[in-house]
């Protein structure tokens, strides 16, 4: 019963994300543009690009992920479906986790899938490309979950997107640190790669636990 309802919510959100406002392709395009800008800024030196490539991919994914997040609850708030979700007898927390999952599949997953190609453009080694993609796969869901807090807190705020970025970006620093160090650890040698990777997994899991509760509290209070 519950899984059916959640599956319906997931499919609804996923379809909406696909069909509204350019869907996944727009986020990937923004990702590509950010990656393209970097060689213009630091110069097309292959050595430098390969050294900072992992960090560039992570920063670009972070910014591209932020882009559509303000729509996570705002559209539902505007057309009233968020009120229906509030009245639903399922816990709001698990519905928010489902919405985050749908949002990540629609916007985060395409970034992860396209990361290897952009890694090639930045001249990364194959194993480093593998590490960046893996760390993005583990880390970007956490970014979506944290972003849900920001989206919920800025619900109904005019020009809320900028406020959301200011509020959420400080909390993504630990994920950024361990995401990038997973990639660079692999480049330095296979020895210690599991340490930053397991910490990154831990941070991700922690954010899945904390974020739905905080976001649900904000959605309940902000709609009053």
């Amino acid at each position, binding site marked *: 019963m519950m899984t059916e309802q959640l599956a319906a919510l997931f499919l609804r959100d996923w379809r909406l994300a696909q069909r509204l406002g350019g869907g996944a392709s727009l986020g990937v395009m923004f990702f590509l543009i950010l990656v393209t800008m970097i060689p213009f800024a630091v110069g097309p030196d292959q050595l430098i690009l390969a050294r900072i490539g992992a960090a560039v991919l992570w920063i670009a994914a972070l910014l591209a992920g932020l882009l559509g997040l303000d729509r996570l609850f705002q559209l539902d708030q505007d057309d009233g479906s968020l009120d229906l979700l509030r009245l639903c007898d399922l816990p709001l927390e698990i519905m928010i986790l489902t919405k985050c999952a749908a949002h990540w599949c629609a916007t985060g997953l395409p970034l992860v899938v396209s990361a290897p190609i952009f890694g090639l453009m930045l001249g990364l080694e194959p194993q480093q490309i593998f590490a960046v993609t893996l760390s993005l796969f583990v880390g970007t869901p956490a970014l979506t979950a944290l972003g849900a807090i920001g989206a919920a807190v800025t619900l109904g705020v005019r020009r809320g997107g900028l*406020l959301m970025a*200011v509020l959420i970006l400080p*909390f993504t620093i630990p994920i950024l640190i361990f995401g990038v160090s997973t990639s660079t650890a692999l480049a330095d040698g296979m020895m210690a790669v599991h340490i930053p990777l397991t910490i990154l997994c831990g941070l991700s899991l922690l954010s899945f636990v904390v974020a739905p509760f905080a976001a649900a509290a904000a959605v309940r209070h902000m709609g009053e």
Partner: protein
Amino acid sequence: MMKDVSVALPVRMWRVVTGYANPTRFLGLCDVLVPWCASLSALLIALGLYLTFFVAPADYQQGESVRIMYLHVPAAWLSLMIYAVMAVSALGTLVWRHPLADAAQKAAAPLGAAFTFVCLATGSLWGKPMWGTWWVWDARLTSVLVLFLLYLGLIAIWHTLEDQAQAAKAAGVMTLVGVINLPIIKFSVEWWNTLHQPASVFRMGGPTIYASMLWPLLIMAVGASFLFVTLHLMSIRNEILRRRVARMALMMAQG
């Protein structure tokens, strides 16, 4: 009237807290407390500064520059304490719906940002002669910088959201999420063994700092805490008065 002694102490304390939900009663309390806190703070800081510059010895390694510590460390402690005060106020808003908790949250954010800024600025001035650089991306420095960013974000919430009751709830949720940063700051010097020195006052086995330096430091810290309490009370009072003015302006506009 018989005094009810059968009620447990927490319940009686709770009644005191809820009693001051009445803004008028709180304003009365403010008028009593503010002069005392202000004079205590002025006295302690004056004494602390005298001890800092004329009594406390120069460090055998750091020389005279160690005197920055008496400003830097209290500011650092307060930057954490104010966040804790704000977190308790956030609980007051979200859980107990205490009407003054909103004002307490709003008033604490700029004060916390100011003390954090003092901590960062004095640390930077101290770092230049000692470490040879204004800034390093050390774990303690970075986590305090993140604390500063959190304060700025919270201030941005108060400025951006027009409905102040809604802003209080949004700021409350963000404040509680940000509490995660406090243990990270506290233990950053132990988890990551980087440039910033580990704790030397609040540690297992007692302080490792010599008494002639510890006393001025503690006096400065207590003085700075009273300064915060004074400013916080005054700021809450301003917020209450500002709300009354806004309400009266609204009533006048409605005729």
